[in-house]
């Protein structure tokens, strides 16, 4: 189902090369910026044969998944299908067998990948006096935040917030006093510094209202177009997956189906898994 990008073949020093030419009308499904100069970008995250076993048995079984340059790959599946376990494995929080490898834009292997993670509902002590500035500056500098913030860190934190469409005023607010939408923006700003090799979104809009959700996904789409990093999105909201993801994978212990988002969403298997009316008889 994967859509191939147009490649221009040539020769350089006797070696055959393939160069992807982006630009207006290039038709590329993963890079929509007109005039983009990224040449045959090979940045990706690839999961091979990943299995996770817990006391109650096999939770994930031989997962194969590749998310490439500029893709938003949505992981969908029923409750208990292993979505959260997969995220924990990617974050290195649980032991697993198999491999997860990352490559940069040149196709070189990245040994210590940078992961930007936006969690579902950030489980934290809402009465904690930690401000958005404390959180962002702790990630930006080694200067201990209990002694205050350096001016340059604060300026960078403000710039990060502006990048995700939030006001610098949020910096002074305690995390527990932020609204659902504000908190998700702070988390997204936190995730984007340093620029990640993979952006991991775990039900990122579950605490947001409808309008906030639209704004958040528009933001992620625009970041994806701007920075081209692979994005892995776990969501139970199929409408949003269909609207914002470029590719999708149906997970139930293993990957049952993978392909272009609209094709996966139209499949009978997804209809059956989620009990969607009127979609029976779709493509498998």
């Amino acid at each position, binding site marked *: 189902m994967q859509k191939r990008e147009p490649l221009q073949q040539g020769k350089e020093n006797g070696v055959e090369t393939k160069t992807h030419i982006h630009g207006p009308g290039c038709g590329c499904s993963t890079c929509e910026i007109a005039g983009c100069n990224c040449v045959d970008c090979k940045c990706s995250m690839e999961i091979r044969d990943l299995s996770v076993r817990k006391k109650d048995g096999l939770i994930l079984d031989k997962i194969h998944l590749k998310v490439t340059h500029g893709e938003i790959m949505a992981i969908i599946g029923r409750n208990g299908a292993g979505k959260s376990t997969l995220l*924990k494995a990617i*974050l*290195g*929080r649980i032991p697993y067998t198999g491999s997860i490898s990352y490559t940069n834009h040149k196709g070189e292997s990245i040994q*210590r990948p*940078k*992961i*930007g*993670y936006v*969690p579902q509902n*950030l*489980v*934290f*002590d809402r*009465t*904690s*006096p*930690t*401000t958005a*500035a*404390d*959180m962002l500056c*702790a*990630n930006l*500098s*080694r200067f*201990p*935040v*209990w*002694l*205050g913030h350096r001016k340059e860190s604060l300026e960078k934190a403000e710039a990060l917030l502006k990048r995700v469409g939030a006001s610098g*005023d949020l910096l*002074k*607010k*305690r*995390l*527990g*006093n932020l609204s659902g939408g504000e908190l998700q923006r702070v*988390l997204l700003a*936190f*995730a984007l510094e340093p620029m990640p090799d993979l952006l*991991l979104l775990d039900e990122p809009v579950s605490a947001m209202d409808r309008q906030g959700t639209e704004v958040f996904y528009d933001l992620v789409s625009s970041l994806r177009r701007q920075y081209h990093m692979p994005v892995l999105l776990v969501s139970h909201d199929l409408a949003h997956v269909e609207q914002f993801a470029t590719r999708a994978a149906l997970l139930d212990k293993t990957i049952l189906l993978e392909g272009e988002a609209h094709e996966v969403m139209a499949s009978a298997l997804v209809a059956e898994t989620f009990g969607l009316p009127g979609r029976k008889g779709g493509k498998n």
Partner: protein
Amino acid sequence: MDFLYSLIDMLLPFDWTEFDFMKNAFLAVLLITPLFGLVGTMVVNNRMSFFSDALGHSALTGIAIGVLMGVDDYLFSMMGFSLLFALCISAVMGSGVSSSDTIIGVFSSTGLALGVVLLSATGGFAKYSAYLIGDILTVTGNEIALLAVVLLLVILLWIFVFNRWMLTGLNPDLAASKRIPVGLTEKLFIIVVAVMVTVSIKWVGILIINSLLVLPAASARNIARSMRSYHFLSVLISMISGVTGLILSYYLGTAAGGTIVLTAAVIFFVTFLAGRFGGAGKRSL
């Protein structure tokens, strides 16, 4: 020490500073209280107050082991057992077999009961009951130097590791995404708490050590609006409670540790009311 004594005589020419044991106690309070104020911030932030309480209880078993080994100074037996105890709690909690408060409760009771049983079997528990409430008036010059070293080490750790501790305490998954070794970071904090509790337990006492750790930070949380003000207030409240409690205990003839904790408790309720009716934390910095 002579220089410090003359400095105290010069700056604080009061009745309560006439005796050397009060000067020593004063110096010890000036070292212990910022230490507790600083470490207490993360104990309260990470909801570990029950854990530090259990560590205090385990000190009794550490003393008993020291008695059985025939050593004069129980510091190393307490420290060894406390570290083992803390890492065991951490490992059992990490296995996810039961809720953390249940696990800590089990370890806490075991540590206390084992200490009581071993001490009573080796010649009378009463001899060691002073450890229950502690006595800061018995602190010596060498012990003050040890406290100064511990305070210095904790400040250094707070400078170099604090950001990682804060992010790990906020959310371990989020910290892991920034390549922070979550398990190692958490264990390092546990070791810091275990060392600090063990070093100070002789003067603060098993029964009230946790109050001194938790109350200043809890008071600061009531009114703090950022990590900086949280730390500043916690250390300040801890030091004010310590010095006020020590002076009050001298004039009232009460136990110093208990008086210090009561002073800290009064400050907690004042800050609680200030936070509740003053709207602290809802406004910006």
